């Protein structure tokens, strides 16, 4: 037992089937146990912040799409809210409702990928296929309205690029009633699958204290049992009008804050998103979505920090304006960037195979980590 052996360094990524993009991990292992994890980022550093300084305010929006490319609507939402705050614009009711519905649809689509790949990494490929099928459904609804499948450039400062398609309301309603079935299926197929539970329960436990100190947000923080959701706690847009719950990890299959809890929170969050959509879809008021779009965006000097609840957590935009048509500085507080920082802490003492399960449950998008 007292035999001390040298630790070994194992490289994982950037080309690796289950690193969710181009992340490189340097694993220091002792036998099968992880001693230390050193993430190396920057393999997808696309200079967003530099671009934002060279663009006009409305031209930045297509670039925000490309950060968290699984939740482009959320990214647009955060950015336009920040600029609107700086400009002091009030957007029409109709725009607010459509934005919320779009953001929630996108949240479901994003969680579909997150859950699907989390399962697929561990070895359950079937849910991946089913969830991608349903994601296509959402994408086709959104595509009908704004013309693109993934990177929408849909929300503009003060409004939207297009009004919703005439079919939108009907198809969204169809989708919400259809998707409930999928969640039940997913629960049976993966959530309560014994093998999946064995792989994720009690793995990568994140205590609440650590989570807050590390700045974790989103399902990561809620998985640790803290009821914190910006939609409720620091409410923005019109989220205070809707009735929804914040699912938190309860440790149903293991300890509170393990990988399974984070997975579980995402599943339950999809249900809550459906609830929001169902409430909002019937209330969309009539109106013009272009009426509040300013001709020329030239905010006064000042700074703004605005944050929204993206599928991955708190997405913050810190914008400094020097009174020009271009932003002086845009800093993005990306949720994945902060959440990924905890990986080293979570993996310590686990087996190599668990790194994948933990990484899948953190649900990072490298476009956002590296920007």
């Amino acid at each position, binding site marked *: 037992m007292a035999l001390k052996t040298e630790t070994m360094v194992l490289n994982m990524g950037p080309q690796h089937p289950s690193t969710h993009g181009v992340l490189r991990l340097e694993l220091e292992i002792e036998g099968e146990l992880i001693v230390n994890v050193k993430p190396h*980022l*920057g393999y997808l*550093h696309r*200079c967003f*912040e*530099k671009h934002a*300084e060279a663009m006009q305010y409305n031209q930045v929006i297509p670039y925000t799409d490309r950060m968290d490319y699984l939740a482009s609507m959320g990214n647009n939402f955060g950015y336009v809210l920040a600029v609107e*705050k*700086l400009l*002091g614009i009030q957007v029409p009711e109709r725009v607010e409702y459509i934005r919320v519905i779009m953001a929630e649809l996108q949240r479901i689509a994003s969680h579909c990928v997150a859950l699907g790949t989390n399962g697929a990494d561990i070895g359950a490929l079937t849910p991946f296929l089913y969830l991608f099928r349903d994601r296509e459904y959402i994408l086709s609804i959104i595509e009908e309205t704004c013309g693109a499948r993934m990177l929408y450039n849909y929300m503009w400062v003060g409004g939207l690029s297009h009004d919703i398609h005439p079919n939108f309301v009907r198809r969204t309603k169809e989708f919400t009633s259809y998707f409930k079935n999928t969640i039940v299926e997913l629960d049976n197929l993966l959530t309560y699958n014994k093998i999946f539970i064995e792989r994720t329960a009690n793995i990568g436990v994140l205590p609440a204290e*650590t989570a*807050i*100190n*590390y*700045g*974790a947000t989103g399902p990561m923080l809620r998985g640790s049992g*803290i009821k*914190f959701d910006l939609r409720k*706690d*620091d409410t923005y847009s019109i989220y205070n009008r809707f009735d929804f719950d914040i699912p938190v990890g309860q440790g149903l299959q293991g300890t509170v804050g393990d990988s399974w809890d984070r997975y579980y929170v995402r599943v339950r969050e999809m249900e809550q998103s459906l609830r929001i959509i169902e409430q909002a879809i019937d209330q969309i008021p009539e109106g013009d979505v272009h009426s509040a779009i300013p001709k020329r965006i030239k905010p*006064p000097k*000042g*700074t*703004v*920090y605005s*944050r929204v609840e993206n599928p991955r957590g*708190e997405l*913050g935009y*810190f914008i*400094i304006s020097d009174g020009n048509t271009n932003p002086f*500085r845009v*800093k993005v*507080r990306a949720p994945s*960037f*902060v959440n990924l*920082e905890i990986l080293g802490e979570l993996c310590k003492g686990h087996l190599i195979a668990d790194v994948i399960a933990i990484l899948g449950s953190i649900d990072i998008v490298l476009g956002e980590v*590296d*920007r």
Partner: protein
Amino acid sequence: MKTAEEIFEILKNELGEIILSIDKDTPTEPIISVEPLKIHIVSKFLRDNSELQFDSLMCLSGVDDANGKKVKDNEGYDVIEGGTLSVYYHLYSTVLKHKITLKVSAPREDAKVESVENVWKCADWHEREAYDMIGIKFLNHPDLRRILMPYDWEENSHPLRKDFKVPEFYQGMKIPY
């Protein structure tokens, strides 16, 4: 729940000289300026004081203020001399639900700011990023390396500075279009 003015009063009473001023003119939140080499004392106070309880650091951003003089260097490129680099700290209390923005400014040529990594763990990567992008050195940071740019990127070349010049080649690959 406290407003920024109240927080500023508490800080001023408790810590005195370290807290420089409060800027209320911004359209959104007021910004409290702090001495750069004492920021860790302020942060520890903000986190541990029972009236404030700022337990989470939302965002830490390095900014090139570009308020110095523009001069031509010997190759004819514009470089900025003098002025300051700043770091903004956006804090939030998950218990009391109030926010505050802190700001520190350090001279551009030798920007040194005390690290707050031992107060909020998440500052670790944010500070590395600020070092990488802007070139602010964080004193007492455990592992101040580049984070997004390659480790062998040119010394003293920090992309988000306003006078950053894109190098022609990196490891034999042409960078400009």
